[in-house]
């Protein structure tokens, strides 16, 4: 018999601390599969954020740096400028990237820093216990929007991929989902494209992955995937928002 699926080398065998059904596990694995397929495990350096995935450094079998909340793109800039021949990626949640770290991600894209960002958007703050995120949907209940997000006092969900796609230094910005096997396959393709464009030196690349947080949404993992596809996708449409075909750096 031939093995058609097994654990990628770029993942350690550690059991993760993530909740049952949390899509971090899927996304970690996709990144690891891509790194394996591109054959770059020994020249990749990852940056883990503050958030549920702070411990990503235990799960990726790579050189890793843990970064302050929101600052991963700055840390990645430091790493890539020192080692321009290496592959560098950040892995960030929506609090990290779209709240405290908005300046850092915008300016990394503006400077065309040649690293890849995996942006895990689950419309809530997971690790700290379910507070509202900038990406939380209108009327979505959270610990800091207990009556549901009210646009009058708490604004509207922010679409980072569309915003970053307006930046010239960005070579590839895409939004994907992982709510069924077909979307998972598409997500992997986008992640692979992002890393390939990094290797080609085209500029900043980012894949926003719509994700679930069953625990803080108050759903079972299956229900959470359903909520993602029915409620999140209309607000965060999937697709490639920017692709630099020609030119770039």
């Amino acid at each position, binding site marked *: *018999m031939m*093995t*058609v*699926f097994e654990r990628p080398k770029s993942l350690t065998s550690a*059991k993760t601390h993530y909740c049952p*059904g949390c899509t*971090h596990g899927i996304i970690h694995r996709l990144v690891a599969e891509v790194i394996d397929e591109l054959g770059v495990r020994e020249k990749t350096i990852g940056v883990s954020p503050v958030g549920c995935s702070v411990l990503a450094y235990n799960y990726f079998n790579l050189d890793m740096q843990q970064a302050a909340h929101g600052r991963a793109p700055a840390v990645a800039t430091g790493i890539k400028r020192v080692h321009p021949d290496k592959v560098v990626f950040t892995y960030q949640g929506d609090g990290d990237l779209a709240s405290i770290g908005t300046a850092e991600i915008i300016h990394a894209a503006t400077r065309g820093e040649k690293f890849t960002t995996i942006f895990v958007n689950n419309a809530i703050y997971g690790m700290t216990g379910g507070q509202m995120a900038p990406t939380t949907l209108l009327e979505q209940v959270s610990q800091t929007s207990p009556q549901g997000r009210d646009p009058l006092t708490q604004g509207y969900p922010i679409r980072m991929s569309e915003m970053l796609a307006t930046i010239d230094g960005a070579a590839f910005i895409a939004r994907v989902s992982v709510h069924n096997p077909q979307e*998972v*396959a598409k997500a992997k393709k986008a992640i692979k494209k992002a890393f390939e464009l990094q290797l080609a030196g085209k500029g900043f690349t980012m894949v926003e992955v719509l994700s679930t947080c069953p625990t803080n949404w108050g759903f079972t*993992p299956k229900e959470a995937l359903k909520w993602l596809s029915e409620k999140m996708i209309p607000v965060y449409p999937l697709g490639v928002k920017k692709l630099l075909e020609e030119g770039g750096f």
Partner: protein
Amino acid sequence: MLKVEFEEDRCKGCELCADACPKHIIIMAEHLNSMGFHPAVVLEQEKCISCGFCARMCPDVVITVRKEEKANGQSALEGK
């Protein structure tokens, strides 16, 4: 060798694999694993088509998927 093999003690009982299986052969076991979850199992191995959807959806790398090679050595399955 099994076509689809579950490393029971990694499973958190999230059921995403069971939901994704097009042949509906994944069930959640009665017993609890060492972490206290009902692990996913496949009893009807012969019905597995090695599509890998379960492994694709599994957040915990619980599942290894294999397929029987055809006589002419060609794979029956497209890449994941």
